[in-house]
């Protein structure tokens, strides 16, 4: 089963402390060694981003930054896991690192299962 983790937080959080980055790097390394990490990446600030929206028959393009947004997606990671509970456990450990090394930081990791071949194909 494949899961995408979306890490969301206020854009104005500032730069994360080195201890947190080191701890996250170590956690990522463990996921690679466990054979579960498929891909991961940080997302550049919204100042460099663009949104293309369709609404009420109109398509509009808006460049960032999106200062009115309470939370933005700062990064994503994709894992191959046996169950959603494993994904939750992984996210818990990730957030524990934030709590420990960046007190006061607020944010959320959303866990979304990605559709796989088992979701398409013939039904039994």
């Amino acid at each position, binding site marked *: 089963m494949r899961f995408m983790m979306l890490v969301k937080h206020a854009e104005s959080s500032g730069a994360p402390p080195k201890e947190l980055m080191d701890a996250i790097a170590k956690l990522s390394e463990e996921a690679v060694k466990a*054979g579960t990490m498929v891909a991961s990446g940080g997302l550049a600030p919204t100042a460099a981003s663009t949104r293309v929206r369709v609404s009420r028959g109109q398509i509009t393009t808006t460049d960032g930054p999106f200062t009115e947004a309470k939370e933005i997606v700062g990064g994503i990671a994709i894992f191959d896991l046996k169950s959603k509970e494993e994904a939750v456990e992984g996210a818990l450990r990730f957030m524990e690192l934030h709590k420990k090394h960046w007190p006061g930081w607020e944010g959320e990791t959303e866990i979304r299962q990605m559709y796989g071949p088992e979701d398409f194909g013939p039904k039994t």
Partner: protein
Amino acid sequence: MTATDTHRAIDAIWRIESAKIIAGLARIVRDVGLAEELAQDALVAALEQWPESGIPDNPGAWLMATAKHRAIDLFRRKKLLERKHEELGRELDAQQKMAVADFDSAIDDDIGDDLLRLVFVSCHPVLSTEARVALTLRLLGGLTTEEIARAFLVPEPTVAQRIVRAKRTLAEARVPFEVPRGDEVAARLSSVLEVIYLIFNEGYSATAGDDWMRPALCEDALRLGRILAELVPKEPEVHGLVALMEIQASRSGARIGPSGEPILLLDQDRSRWDQLLIRRGLAALQRAEELRGALGLYALQAAIAACHARARTPEETDWPRIAALYDALARGAPSPVVELNRAVAIAMAFGPAAGLELVDALTSEPSLKSYHLLPSVRGDFLFKLGRFAEAQAEFERAAALTRNAREHELLLGRARACARGSAPLEQR
């Protein structure tokens, strides 16, 4: 958190931590069966205590410490060799003196070595292949006996017995909890790769409508392969096997048709190929290539799969490269089936006459006598050369040899097209 939630969380934690815990314990108690029992005892303790006390901050360390204390109790009660008790006692004393953080890092430093030892012991040649597969999935894959039984379509007691006997065999043969060295490495590693690929193929061969545990074996094998690649990054064939599995797995969304029928690679909808897995497979192949000049057998097969993976359409396939890779494969692992695949690649690259020459040399091959793909391939070459009467005979021969109804129909269709002397309306 409800008790059920906690139990499910514990299951997940177990899957994440169990191999490392068993590996660490096995180094200390020198017995893989005992190590697993002790780890299971710790799991039982967790299931009893955590719903009340909450899940500890470092669940892996909690489980390991609990298991080690069980080991001490066990040795005290059984009054085993003084030496073992002392060793274990000393180890525990030393650890109790360390701060928790130090304890964790001490485990981390050794854990790679311990995991690798566990991999090699689980795949030890003294065990039958089935035993190696079951033990590996149990100790390293974290699968339950029931899950293994469902995946391999055998009764659960059979798997349970296999595992019990495997542990006993290892203990009786006094298989050391060690990583092989020197001359032994190549053969022992080959055994490990064989087990992993066997698991993968079992999953890959699952058909639509099978229990989900079966195709999930591909993921289990991939996970094991990736773990091994990180444990022995300098071994090119490990990366070769991982590359092969990543790329084969990338096609799982495209392999089955709407009514459950298998779809050949060249006919698959490539937009359903998983590009994330292809990218990983190509990266793994690159690691294999960078380590050593000549590609090993898994790497060669991966390189062939990579040629297909890189082609956005069947027409863009680099057939000359595939033919060259089959040449190398035929030299390294000659077999009639490899020769046949080589003939197909050569025909795609250089024309049907070239392919026919190779296939003609195979017609007297005894192991291919009942292999329907031989006359099927030969018929295809003859058809493309306009030798319709001969092609028809081959397709009819192939149809008679296959037991697959759909295949049978398709081959008869090709035979009929020969009689008409033109391409059939529905091409394969």
